[in-house]
């Protein structure tokens, strides 16, 4: 299973994401400062120059310079990492709804693909927590403090993507929101939109157009603030307590690699794992190496494309040219949109109020969900050994969801898990 190419000591090992050019960044930061001063002095004459500058190098939806300077200070960086946690979590319930609504024995390949994505999203939550813990001064943590607030981190579906990420939607469609849907074409469209890489040709706005771009801003923030802090302290902003890190020994099961974060380089590797798994490796991959072997994990976006087309990618497919247009040409598999529980979209406990027994079942599910999040929160808040206890809870979550899906509603649809906060 282990692919030698990805091993750390291999000199030919491909970086998951392009390293940031250190010099470049300072220059950009300065240039903002000078531009601003310039504008104040001589607003009219400089304005066209700036427009020209932004138009030239800009390939992302939020301008590259805005992305580089997005993070203001350490507090903002920590807030953004908390938002990243919320972002990762917000994707898990829709994927789980897609997975749970597949009836036993059907859509085997699709289920396996979605399942592998969910597992990796959970890994991403842990990786983001590791980065956040690595840059949090232990002296600022009060006893009993948790890394995040479970009640606040649970989104209310349908929800926009947290973090001001606004993916492009076809013309005329309403702004993108994440819905809880049964396994369907609509759901797969939604999943692909969540994971879609940035379009280099997209016009510039004030919003991030992809999860990758949001993480790009976090990376630049980490690098810049760390360089600044290093002038006064040896470890820069990486002064967290290493015992709060989740490491491979705490993480059971498959789905990528857990990275202990104690330096900037570790943080970059962790983000590389997150972005690489989500939308694929930025830019092109060296052609000399066979990178599309059977044992390579494809990025989420491409896994969802495989389900959309009912076909696996083959070794010769090139998928990393932007914008992404590639169609898989490998082994076909059966996708059945009808062997699915007809779950009501975006179910809520409120919908079940007329049926107290059903409401109780929905609450039972949510209790298990909140317990799972509490467990993860405890684990990333200084008790990493508790992470493993989440496994039992995850299994229970599935069984509780399936019970709800077996309960018919009056209109031919069935009940479903609501993923809402309840007190436990």
């Amino acid at each position: 299973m282990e692919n030698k190419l990805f091993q750390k000591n291999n000199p030919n090992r491909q970086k998951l994401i392009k390293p940031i050019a250190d010099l470049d960044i300072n220059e950009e930061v300065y240039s903002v400062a000078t531009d601003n001063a310039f504008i104040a002095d001589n607003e009219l004459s400089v304005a066209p120059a700036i427009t020209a500058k932004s138009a030239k190098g800009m390939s992302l939806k939020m301008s590259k310079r805005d992305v580089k300077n997005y993070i203001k200070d350490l507090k903002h960086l920590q807030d953004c990492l908390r938002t990243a946690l919320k972002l990762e979590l917000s994707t898990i319930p829709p994927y789980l709804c897609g997975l749970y609504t597949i009836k036993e024995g059907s859509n085997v390949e699709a289920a396996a693909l979605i399942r592998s994505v969910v597992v990796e999203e959970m890994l991403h939550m842990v990786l983001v927590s590791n980065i956040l813990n690595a840059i949090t001064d232990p002296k600022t943590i009060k006893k009993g403090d948790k890394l995040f607030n479970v009640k606040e981190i649970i989104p209310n579906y349908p929800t926009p993507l947290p973090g001001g990420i606004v993916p492009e939607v076809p013309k005329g469609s309403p702004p993108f929101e994440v819905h809880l849907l049964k396994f369907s074409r609509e759901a797969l469209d939604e999943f692909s939109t969540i994971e879609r890489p940035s379009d280099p040709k997209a016009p510039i706005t004030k919003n991030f157009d992809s999860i990758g771009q949001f993480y790009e801003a976090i990376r630049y923030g980490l690098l810049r603030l760390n360089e600044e802090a290093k002038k006064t302290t040896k470890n820069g902003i990486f002064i967290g307590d290493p015992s709060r890190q989740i490491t491979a020994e705490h993480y059971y099961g498959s789905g990528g690699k857990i990275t202990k974060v104690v330096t900037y380089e570790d943080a970059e590797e962790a983000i590389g794992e997150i972005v690489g798994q989500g939308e694929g490796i930025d830019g092109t991959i060296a052609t000399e190496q066979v990178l599309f072997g059977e044992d390579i994990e494809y990025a989420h976006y491409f896994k969802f494309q495989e389900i959309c087309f009912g076909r696996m990618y083959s070794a010769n497919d090139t998928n990393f040219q932007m914008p992404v247009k590639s169609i898989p040409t490998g082994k076909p598999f059966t996708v059945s949109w009808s062997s699915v529980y007809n779950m009501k979209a975006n179910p809520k406990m409120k919908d079940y109020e007329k049926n107290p027994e059903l409401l109780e079942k929905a609450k039972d599910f949510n209790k298990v969900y909140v317990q799972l999040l509490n467990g993860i929160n405890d684990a990333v808040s200084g008790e990493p050994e508790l992470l493993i206890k989440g496994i039992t809870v995850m299994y229970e979550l599935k069984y509780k969801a399936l019970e709800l899906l077996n309960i018919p509603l009056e209109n031919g649809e069935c009940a479903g898990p609501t993923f809402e906060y309840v007190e436990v």
Partner: protein
Amino acid sequence: MEPNSHTKLFLEVSALLTGFSKTELKATGMLETYYNTIQKNTDKQDIDYFFLDVHVLLNDKSKKNIEAALASQFMAASAYNGLAKNIIILWYTGNWGNDVVSSASYIQGLMWNAAHTHPPGAKQPGYGSWAERPLTVKNS
């Protein structure tokens, strides 16, 4: 009588016989299968009388203690060819007599829920679960 009142009565009486709520029974996804199972394996006359009497019992406002009435009138092995007993065994074990109805019925047997455990070979509780109190116990 409305066309599918038998299935409705079957759900009602199953809840009374098993002690699980109607929603919990639906949540097993076995309602239809089990209804068909009793249809297939029980004498039609017995089924008709059984549901007729269940209907009367459930609609009899003067009957204060339905469970006592069920026990005295339905539970004898001779009553309706033991149908009430068979229904209980069906829901709890997924078996009709000594035969398992389907792999799903084995998994969905209420005996596993009642004992806060899981059917061996299915619905795994996950690594390390043996060291913990079952979640269903913790949450109840």
